[in-house]
């Protein structure tokens, strides 16, 4: 039952093959038995999940069931959930129980979904390995000595271990796509503004975007149908009709022009990863698509620009954690300065502190023009690269990450090496474009992700391209040994 996709679960519930209570309790049991090994959940909401499964079964019997009625999913622990602890992977919010739901959470509740729990993540979504979580690292179900990627490593690992059929995630520089690649699942970061950021704990507000993670492109399309909405409560939410993302899944790909950026196949790319990606591209040619070599000449500046903009925005966003209104507060502060200094010194982990300090530096008097303004200019150059490319091609494809999952501690004391994990994903966040990752092969039994980058609001076309690939291949159906 745990191998069923969201589409299969919806069909099964509709036909009465099983009930929501049955599948929900099956998954809760599985989480109880297996998750101590993987640590993919921070909080499991078993009681509430069963109660809403029962309610969903009653609602379905009454003949009025919304799309996700009784379908179990998990939320990344960055989305505020009314009455359920929302930690963002940090000691700072270990005791934080929000009095409201994020819009994404509300949207899934309205669609009838059952929430299994909250998934583990890098602290405040800052990391590419899940090693910065206050709750300990998540282990990759394909190889427990390896990282699951990050920051949405808990969502990706829970999917790979077949603990949940769908999970929400967020992506500021690759945090949906890179863990999806490393865990062999499918994930989509939509166009900036497509999914509401309201109630999603902010990291870098001009880059943060929520999206779905699942085991197939079809499932991601179903989830995006429920997630995407115009939200007046998010000032950057885009007022644009939400299409049915499943509508074009079955369109043939003949005539599709796929841009292959030469900068994404250079030095530093693992040879096995490159081989898997190239074979995937051959499959697209077989289906009638044309490969076009393109250039994104400012690609090498994406990581440097990101590590000005993201820390600068983070240093502003995270100033709200002051030990006064909610969250962690240090013991016995002697004055207000001591309260701030020790609360933040004790409540934040090393990577979060590092990024706040880098951000404070880039924004400080005398450095603003050299760093922040310069980075915002480079950001426009990077966007223009994509605008030029999309004048010639329909989608862009390449590797999601430069290599498969690496061992714990491998990049531990070298933040720059860790930052380069996102060398292929960061540019799309800077440009605000949608990007996705889908499984396309293995290197030493560790999954490889194919990245698809689309033009603004072309999520439907990307999902179509991914779905057609998944109809012809079975990489997305592979399951780690012992977890079948």
């Amino acid at each position: 039952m745990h191998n069923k996709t969201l589409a299969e679960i919806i069909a099964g519930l509709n036909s009465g093959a099983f009930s929501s209570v049955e599948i929900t309790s099956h998954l809760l049991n599985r989480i109880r038995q297996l998750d101590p090994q993987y640590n993919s959940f921070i909080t499991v909401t078993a009681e509430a999940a069963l109660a809403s499964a029962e309610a969903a079964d009653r609602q379905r019997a009454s003949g009025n069931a919304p799309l996700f009625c009784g379908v179990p999913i998990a939320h990344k622990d960055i989305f505020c959930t009314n009455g359920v602890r929302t930690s963002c992977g940090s000691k700072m919010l270990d005791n934080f129980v929000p009095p409201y739901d994020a819009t994404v959470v509300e949207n899934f509740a309205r669609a009838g979904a059952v929430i299994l729990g909250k998934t583990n993540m890098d602290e405040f979504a800052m990391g590419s390995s899940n090693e910065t979580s206050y709750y300990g690292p998540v282990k990759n179900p394909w190889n427990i000595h390896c990282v699951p990627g990050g920051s949405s490593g808990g969502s990706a690992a829970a999917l790979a271990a077949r603990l949940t059929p769908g999970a929400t995630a967020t992506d500021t520089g690759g945090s949906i796509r890179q863990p999806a690649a490393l865990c062999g699942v499918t994930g989509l970061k939509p166009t900036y503004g497509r999914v509401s950021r309201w109630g999603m704990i902010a990291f870098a507000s001009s880059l943060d975007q929520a999206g779905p993670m699942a085991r197939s492109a079809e499932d991601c399309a179903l989830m995006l149908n429920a997630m995407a909405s115009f939200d007046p409560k998010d000032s950057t939410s885009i007022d644009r009709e939400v299409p049915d993302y499943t509508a074009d899944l079955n369109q043939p790909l003949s005539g599709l022009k796929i841009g292959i950026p030469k900068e994404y196949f250079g030095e530093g790319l693992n040879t096995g990863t490159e081989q898997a990606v190239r074979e995937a591209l051959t499959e697209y040619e077989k289906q009638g698509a044309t490969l076009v070599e393109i250039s994104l000449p400012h690609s090498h500046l994406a990581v440097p620009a990101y590590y000005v903009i993201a820390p600068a925005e983070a240093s502003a966003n995270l100033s709200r954690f002051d030990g006064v209104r909610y969250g962690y507060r240090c013991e016995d502060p002697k004055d207000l300065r001591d309260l701030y200094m020790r609360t933040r010194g004790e409540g934040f982990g090393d990577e979060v502190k590092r990024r706040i300090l880098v951000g404070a530096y880039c924004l400080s008097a005398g450095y603003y023009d050299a760093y922040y303004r310069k980075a915002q200019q480079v950001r426009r150059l990077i966007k223009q690269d994509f605008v030029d490319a999309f004048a010639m091609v329909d989608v862009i494809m390449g590797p999601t990450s430069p290599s498969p999952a690496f061992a714990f501690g491998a990049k531990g004391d070298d933040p720059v090496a860790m930052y380069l994990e996102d060398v292929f994903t960061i540019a799309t966040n800077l440009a605000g474009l949608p990007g996705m990752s889908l499984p396309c092969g293995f290197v030493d039994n560790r999954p490889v992700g194919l990245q698809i980058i689309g033009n603004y609001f072309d999520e439907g076309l990307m999902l179509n391209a991914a779905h057609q690939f998944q109809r012809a291949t079975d990489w997305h159906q592979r399951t780690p040994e012992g977890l079948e």
Partner: protein
Amino acid sequence: MTIERADIEKLAELARIELNDATITETTRSIADVLALVDQLQAANTEGVTPMAHPTDAIQRLRPDVVTETNQREAFQAIAPAVEGGLYLVPKVID
């Protein structure tokens, strides 16, 4: 651009983050590495390029100036570290 221990101490003060004396050397080194990465930006020719603040150049949406929120003081104060009589408590600021 070189960054030294004293710079980090000043930044930590500005950002109100207490740094552990034992790790400050390591923090200084790693931040110097990050800034070296970021310095690659200086080589880019950005003459005449308008800084990009929003991916799709959207403008701020405005709404009518009316009250839309209901008072939830009790719900918000229930999760605060210290409150009294509907007020948030902090250490004494003025003697």
